[in-house]
């Protein structure tokens, strides 16, 4: 029976290795400098790239971080300081609810408020949808990381005459900064690859656009479009795009681990 758990461990890590190996093999062959600098080309033309989709994804992440990070950290500060107020319990519960909602439902929400009234898709709507996914993640890790800061530190600052807000921000928050950065990176890694909430918000765009009021291209959307197309050249492009996307996600995930480790030593089991 003990052997069976070894087998389970092998079987569980196998798909990851298979996916990564296949991605590198398929993606690397169609990856070149032009992939990063060129625009998508029509079927049959060689040398198309995903420059607009890569930039689009960065823009969407930028919007999500600009909205989601401050709100998430603010809410995390609130939760760590007002642990037992009715609002704190409600917020904690609802952030779990929000975190468990299907991402397509969040896409519908952004569509209803930011696309329907305006009448066209926009980068802003996509960014807001991603921010809505990011907020609960950042909130909970911030609360957790602030909880680790010793109370004595806060008390020392207050005893020295620091006001409450300065204690919270320049002592407590600063002490927990590495942990919060990790949480933020994990959240970014998670939203970077999201496709469903962008389907009817950011929508995708075959052309160059960085305007927040217009539809914008995104790497995951482009991969989706190319993957379900019937053309071999587009399939190759999809693999290359997937390789770029997953490299981004893995680099961010590993960076998150490194940040924690350098600050707190090896993660505790």
């Amino acid at each position, binding site marked *: 029976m003990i052997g069976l*758990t070894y087998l*389970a*461990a092998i079987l569980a890590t196998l798909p990851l290795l298979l996916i990564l190996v296949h991605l590198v093999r398929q993606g690397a062959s169609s990856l070149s400098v032009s992939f990063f600098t060129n625009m998508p080309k029509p079927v049959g033309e060689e040398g198309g790239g995903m420059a607009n989709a890569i930039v689009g994804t960065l823009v969407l992440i930028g919007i999500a971080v600009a909205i989601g990070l*401050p709100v998430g950290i603010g809410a995390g500060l609130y939760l760590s300081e007002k642990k037992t107020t009715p609002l704190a319990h409600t917020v904690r519960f609802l952030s779990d609810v*929000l975190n*468990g909602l*299907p991402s*397509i439902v969040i896409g*519908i929400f952004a569509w209803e408020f930011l696309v329907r009234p305006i009448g066209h898709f926009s980068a802003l709507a996509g960014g807001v949808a991603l921010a809505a996914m990011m907020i609960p993640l950042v909130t909970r890790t911030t609360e957790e990381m602030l909880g680790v800061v010793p109370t004595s530190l806060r008390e020392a600052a207050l005893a020295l005459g620091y006001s409450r807000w300065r204690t919270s921000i320049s002592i407590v928050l600063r002490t927990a900064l590495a942990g919060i950065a990790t949480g933020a990176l994990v959240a970014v890694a998670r939203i970077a690859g999201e496709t469903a909430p962008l389907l009817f918000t950011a929508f995708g765009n075959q052309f160059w656009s960085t305007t927040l009021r217009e539809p914008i291209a995104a790497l995951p959307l482009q991969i*989706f479009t190319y993957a379900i197309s019937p053309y071999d050249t587009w399939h190759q492009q999809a693999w290359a795009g997937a390789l770029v996307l997953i490299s981004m996600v893995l680099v961010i995930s590993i960076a998150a681990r490194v940040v924690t480790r350098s600050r707190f030593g090896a993660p505790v089991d």
Partner: protein
Amino acid sequence: MTSISARWLERERRTLRVDQSAIGDRIYETVTTASALVIPALVIAIAIAIFVAALPAFARLGISIVTSSDWDVAGGHFGAAPAVFGTLVSSMVALVIATPLAIGVAVFLSEFSPPWLRQPVGFLVDLLAAIPSVVYGLWGIFVLIPLLREKVMPFLRDTLHLGATPFFSGAAYGPSMLAAGVILAIMALPYISSVSREVLLAVPRSQREAALALGATRWEMIRDAVIPYARSGIIGGIMLGLGRALGETMAVTMVIGNRPEISASLFAPGYTMASLIANEFSEATNDMHLSALMAVGASLFVITLIVNAIARWLVWRVSRSRS
């Protein structure tokens, strides 16, 4: 004179970092409370957005929207039963595959793994959760589906003679409920295993030591003392994985075949609620069509909400008994 002493006092305040804190504190409190309020506001806004938009469809079609199988946009019939069926069945298939594997990994990591393997294996399994679903879908289309069509499906149907049962019969096209289930299993696995690992590690030492002292082998200890203790937490982890599987959109849309039919065979293509929305939403032709899709989204919202609430409650029960 007063102004000089006031200035002196001000400078002294600054060097001592004492300031008139009342205003700063009030601003700080307002800002953090407002941030905290964003979360309830978001959830309420999402619920209102979807339920209000779904209202016309519910009013006209009632419960038939999830019980009827007739989805005919031009004729004004909106019955999403095949999608509801597909959502439930694909998630069940996923759990049947993922649960034993995930618990196996969790037991391995918490009990048997050599210390040097614990970190890397745990990291690799966690990474499964970091892979974007569209990448799973891409891999599903070009690697998993051919594999299922050429090797796994014929093996199940002919070599194991499971073709005699309705569940594994019929032609092997590739895009199918089975493909969706396998992809979802891979995606749900890290959620189930990480929660299970945590609750297994939370089982008190005394529980293990008592079993060993009674003469149990290590395996018997785990089977009879550790797993029963952690059971409700593990079930919570499974429910959490289920919540993920029910709402997963892209990977499923890419491999399930998107055919709105109810079939007993796992080899047949199917549909899910999420993929129905993903496929039709941006080209919804009229208000009733849109409202019907919203109603499907609202149903999905309610189902995942219930599943997640049960999951959190179960995990919370275990972690509470620990502390």
